[in-house]
């Protein structure tokens, strides 16, 4: 018979390396037509990092996403970056980009201030213009400011900067310290059906609500969450590298079982409204944490459905059925 169950799990997860320095550097150049180029040493590994980083540069310069071209991943061209690891790109590289773009913007404010007859600190970059704070009608296009700065003042609009999250060494005896600058939080809830005759677990739905600070690009954050959950589903129910005398016996995609489109449930994703003042425009990160609570939520849902606690992953149908039978036996013994 199929038994329904629901389970939740929440989690916390840090951004960046554990104490160790993990800096990023960035260079932002603004062109005379008001478009811009961002140089970053990170690599696009699928998350949409380059799109997010471009959006951060654009935001700082008052531009649209499409105005910023992102150049990445060439040690001859792009500045130092610790890389696509530890959910750090939006936060650490993003913070470096904000600082680099601010330097370029400062040059533009210096150039625009006399033209708009105000002081540089009375200016803002917005809607592709440099404008007087609170007086959008008093403004010039960004391209004009670049042009003026470059060809009249001889000062091209370019900025480079770096960022490393501040941490405090952990005490070697007690581990006390500040290993990370910030953390994200999340909850996932799973709705499952367990066949108590075969042990098969079908996940009907997973609701996932994550904190990533400000979502720089909500669509890409959703994509991270949905993908992380699929990795969590595999970890929970299917995936395991098996060994025989130190030799892997299933090193192929026929026998290493990972989720297909038929194995993934309906997903509902939500983002909490949060703002981290230490992140770029309040952002933290979203990559890894998405895969963290899924397995726990599913195991709690299995427990809710059939009353067994799975203590070793993956919860294959065989393992779940074994636990169900063990429980039935125990109950039988107890009732005698």
């Amino acid at each position, binding site marked *: 018979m199929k038994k329904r169950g629901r389970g939740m799990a929440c989690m916390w997860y840090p951004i960046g390396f554990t104490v160790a320095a993990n800096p990023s550097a960035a260079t932002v150049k603004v062109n005379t037509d008001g478009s811009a180029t961002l140089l970053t040493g990170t690599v696009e590994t699928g998350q949409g990092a380059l799109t997010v980083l471009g959006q951060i540069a654009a935001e700082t310069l008052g531009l649209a996403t499409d105005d910023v071209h992102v150049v990445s991943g060439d040690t001859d061209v792009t500045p130092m970056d610790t890389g696509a690891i530890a959910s750090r790109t939006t936060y650490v590289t993003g913070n470096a980009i904000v600082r680099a773009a601010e330097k370029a913007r400062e040059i533009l404010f210096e150039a625009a201030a006399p033209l708009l007859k105000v002081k540089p600190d009375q200016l803002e970059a917005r809607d592709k213009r440099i404008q007087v704070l609170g007086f959008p009608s008093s403004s010039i296009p960004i391209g004009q400011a670049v042009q003026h700065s470059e060809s009249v003042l001889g000062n091209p609009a370019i900025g480079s900067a770096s960022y490393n999250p501040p941490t405090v060494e952990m005490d070697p005896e007690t581990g006390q310290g500040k290993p990370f600058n910030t953390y994200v939080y999340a909850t996932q809830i799973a709705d499952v059906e367990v066949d108590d005759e075969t042990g098969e677990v079908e996940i009907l739905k997973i609701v996932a609500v994550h904190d990533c600070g400000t979502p720089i690009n909500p669509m890409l954050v959703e994509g991270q969450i949905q993908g992380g959950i699929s990795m969590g589903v595999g970890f929970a129910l*299917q995936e395991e590298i098996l060994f*025989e005398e130190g030799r892997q016996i*299933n090193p192929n995609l026929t026998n290493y079982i990972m989720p*297909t489109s*038929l194995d993934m449930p309906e997903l509902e994703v939500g983002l909490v409204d949060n703002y981290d003042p230490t992140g770029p425009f309040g952002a933290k990160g979203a990559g890894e944490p998405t895969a963290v609570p899924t397995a726990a939520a599913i195991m709690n849902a299995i427990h809710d459905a059939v009353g067994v606690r799975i203590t070793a992953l993956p919860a*294959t149908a*065989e393992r779940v059925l074994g636990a169900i039978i063990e429980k039935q036996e125990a109950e039988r013994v107890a009732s005698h």
Partner: protein
Amino acid sequence: MRALDYIVPESAAAAVALLNEHGETACPLAGGTDLVVDLKHSPGNIQVLVDVSGLEEFHGIEETEKGLRIGSMVTYGEIMENPICIEKIPEVVAASHTVGAVQTRNLGTIGGNLVTCVPSADSAPALMVLDAEVTVTGTDGDRCMPIEDFFIGPRKTILEPHELLADIWIPKKMLGKPSSFSKFGLRKGQALALVNVAAALELDKGKILEPRIALGAVAPTPIRALKAESHLAGQKPTADLIDEAAQIAVTETKPIDDFRASANYRRQLIRRLTQRVLTQSLEIAAER
């Protein structure tokens, strides 16, 4: 992939002649979903591929006086879309649907699946409960046999090196017979069967008539559960009777312990799946 020769014969007779000539070094190529993988990783002594996939003699699905003929080179995709198959042999269609994924079903042929003869072949149990027969063609002409007799062991059939599986016949009286197929794998998509089971039966005045149960992945070859069948024959169907039959079926199997599942777990699955296909077949029969 190692160097090979590739020959496209014009006829079944030409293919047989080629196979005869090259003996063990030649191998007929059907869909290739198993063979091409083997050629990449364990080519053995194969030096010549004889591509029989396009031979007209081995294609087509027709209903005749004798029954339903499925050419050995018919793909799973073709079976799934064929109106005669959908109407007359729905559990073969259902079994076809569980093979690999769309891409493999479009390449893989029903004949290839039977000739590869892995114990978990999904089409085998579904065909066995319909008393399917196969025709084999070779240098000495054609021979015909019940499908059970075609399998010898894991990856081993009665085919001589010069022989080819030509077609599969389902007797007329078995067409449209109430039947059901069930497969249990380690996931929903692209699953290999831990156990697959098919059943077919009829109800005559409330009693079970000519029951058939066939199981895959539970023994060196796909098997019929004959004792379980005879336990059901002529009986009034009850839940207890079905469970008894399912438990008898378990005793007729020899499942293995491997990294996919233990023999013990496979036995539990055999019982549950057998119960389920029998129950479903009875429901279908009762509706008639």
